[in-house]
C-alpha cells in the first residue's frame, strides 16, 4: 500500500469535468510523475492534495489519513510540503530567515507565541537552516534578501524551505517551468539528491526530459482521466499516450 492513495476522485467546474474518476497510488520513497497535455487536470489534482480544492467525490489518503476537509497548514504539518509553479518565498526576508521559518513550523506546530525567546539563541534551528542552504548551494548568501535572487536560485531556496521541514511527501508543480537548460539540469540533480534521502515526490511536469530523468513511475492524465500508469520505459512507447499528446502521430 502506498504512502498516498487517491481513489475515485471527481471534480466538476460547472459543466466541465476536470477530474474523472482518478485513481493513483504513490509508493513511498519513489518519484511519481503526473504528465498530460494542457488542461488535462494536473494542477486541479494537485490542489486536491493540499487543501486548496475539495473533490466532489472520492478519497485522498496520506499514510492512511484523509487529506480532505483540512486546512493547508494542517496538511503541511502532516508532512506534505509543496513547491509552486512560480517560486513562493518570503521576498522581504533574508535567505536564512526564509529557511528558519519552516524549521520553526516543524518544531513549534501551527501556532505558538514564543515572543520572549530570541531568534539569535535558537542555535539548533539556525544550524539546521544553514545545513539545508549549504546542501542547496546557497550558503554564501545567507544574509541576502530573497527577492533579489535569480529565478533558478529562488527555486533552490523554495526547495530548501521544504527540506528544512523534512517532509515525507514533496509535491512539485512544474518545478522547471521557465528555466534555462542549465538551471533545469541543476534542478534535476537537486531533486535526485532529495529523492535519495528517502523523500517521496510527486512531480507535475511538461518537460519530458525532466520526467524521464527523474520518475520511477508515471501517470498520464488526459481530459481528467488517468489513461495509463506505468514505468517510464513502457510509457514512452504506449500508443494511448501518443494519441493523447499528439492526436495519434508517433513520437
Amino acid at each position: 500500500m502506498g504512502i498516498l492513495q487517491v481513489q475515485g476522485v471527481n471534480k466538476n467546474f460547472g459543466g466541465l469535468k476536470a477530474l474523472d474518476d482518478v485513481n493513483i497510488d504513490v509508493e513511498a520513497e519513489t518519484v511519481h510523475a503526473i504528465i498530460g497535455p494542457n488542461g488535462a487536470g494536473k494542477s486541479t489534482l494537485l490542489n486536491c492534495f493540499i487543501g486548496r480544492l475539495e473533490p466532489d467525490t472520492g478519497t485522498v489518503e496520506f499514510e492512511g489519513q484523509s487529506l480532505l476537509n483540512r486546512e493547508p497548514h494542517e496538511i503541511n504539518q502532516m508532512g506534505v510540503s509543496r513547491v509552486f509553479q512560480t517560486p513562493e518565498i518570503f521576498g522581504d526576508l533574508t535567505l536564512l530567515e526564509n529557511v528558519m521559518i519552516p524549521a520553526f513550523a516543524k518544531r513549534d506546530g501551527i501556532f505558538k507565541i514564543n515572543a520572549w525567546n530570541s531568534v539569535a539563541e535558537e542555535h539548533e534551528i539556525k544550524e539546521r537552516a544553514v545545513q539545508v542552504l549549504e546542501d542547496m548551494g546557497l550558503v554564501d548568501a545567507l544574509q541576502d534578501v530573497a527577492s533579489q535572487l535569480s529565478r533558478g536560485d529562488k527555486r533552490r531556496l523554495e526547495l530548501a524551505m521544504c527540506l528544512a521541514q523534512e517532509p515525507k511527501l514533496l509535491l512539485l508543480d512544474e518545478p522547471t517551468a521557465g528555466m534555462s537548460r542549465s538551471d533545469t539540469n541543476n534542478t534535476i540533480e537537486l531533486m535526485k539528491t532529495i529523492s535519495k534521502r528517502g523523500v517521496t515526490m510527486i512531480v507535475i511536469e511538461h518537460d519530458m526530459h525532466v520526467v524521464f530523468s527523474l520518475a520511477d513511475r508515471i501517470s498520464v492524465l488526459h481530459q481528467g482521466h488517468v489513461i495509463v500508469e506505468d514505468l517510464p520505459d513502457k510509457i514512452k512507447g504506449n500508443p494511448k499516450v501518443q494519441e493523447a499528446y499528439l492526436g495519434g502521430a508517433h513520437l
Partner: protein
Amino acid sequence: MLGLDANDRKLFLIVAVVALLAPILLNPFPEGSELAQFNAGYPDLMQRFAIFGIFAIGFNILFGLTGYLSFGHAAFLGVGSYAGVWMLKLLSMNVVPAIIVSVVVAGLFSVVVGFISLRRSGIYFSILTLAFAQMSFALAYSVLTPITNGETGLQLALNDPRIFGDSQIDGSIPPTNFFGFEMRDGFELALGPWAFTFNVGYYLCAIILLLSFYISVRIFRSPFGMMLRAVKTNQQRLKYTGKNPKPYTLAAFVISGMYAGLAGGLMVAMDPLAGAERMQWTASGEVVLMTILGGAGTLIGPVLGAGVIKYFENIFSKINDTILHNWFSFMPDTMQDIFVFLVNPFIGKGWHLTLGIMFMLVVIFLPGGLVEGAQKLGRLFKRKRNKQADNNALDAGD
C-alpha cells in the same frame, strides 16, 4: 545582558538615557531668552511624548510587522481611558489598578474587534477597523452616556464612591498617585538662567515607555516576531509552510490594542478625564502618521514620529504674528511684512501645513521614515570619515 544583542542593547541604553534626562535635554534654552519658547521640557508635554510613544510602539507591532493597517486604534485608547477613569472613581486614586484595568479592558475589546476585522485583509481590514472605531465613538457620544458621560466626558466628581480612599479631601478631589507619590508632584531645579522640572508623572510615563520599548524589542527579535514579518511578506507561503497566519495576526492585533489601552490608562493617570473625541478617526490617523513618519517596522521610528508630531502640535502652533515680527525686526518694515506674510501660513494654526509637507517629503524621499534618513546620514558620515582615514593612511605612506 537583558537578552538583547549588542546593537539593540546600545539602542535601548540610548533611549533610556534620553528618556530619563528628557527634562534637561528638552529645555536647552535659558529661561526668558528668545528661544525659550522652543523648550519642550514641561511635564504636560513630556508626558504626552511618552504616552504617544507607547501608543505608536504598540501600533508598530501590528502595522510594522504584519503590514495590517488599522485605522481604528484610537478606539482601544479611548476604551482604556474610560476604564481607567472608572477605576479611579470606584476603586482608588492609585494609578496602578487603573492602568492595569485599562490594559485588560482594551485587550478584551481588541480580541472582539480583531477577530471580526481580521477576516479580511488589505483595504477591507482597514475599513472594518475604521468602522468599529467610529461606531465606538458614536456610541460613547450617545447611547452609552451613562458610562461615558457623553459630550462632557467622563471625569472625577466630589461624591465618587471610592472603595479604597476618600471621595474628597478638604472639599476637593484627591490627586492621582502612585503609592503615595502624587503625579503632579515634582521639583524644580534652577541652574543659573536654566530651569528644569522633574515631575513624578513624567517619570512614571518614562519608565513604562522604557518597559514597553523593551518588550517590543524582544517581540521583534523573537521567532514570533519572525512569523509576523512572514505574514507581511507572503501569507500564502506561510500557510503552506504549516503555520496558521490567523492567530498570529490576531495576537499582534491584541498586543497592539493592549499598548493602546496602556497609553489610554496613562493619560487618565496623568489627567483623570476621558472624552469620546479620543476615539475619533483623526486620533486613529494620528498614530498611523507617527509610525510612518518615524519609520514603520523599525524599533525606534514610532517613538521618534510621536515626538516630532507632538512637538509640532504643541510648540510650532504657539508661534504667532507678534513673534514673527520680532524675528524679522532687523529688516526694513516692508520686507518684514512680506516675510511675515510668507511664513505665516506655516506656523501657528498652520502647523498642520508644515507637518503635511514634511510628511510628504518623508514618504516620497525616505520611505523608511526618519530612521532611514538618520541611517543615510550616518552612512554618509562614515564614508567621509573612511575617506579621511584613507587619505591619512596615504599621507603616512608618503
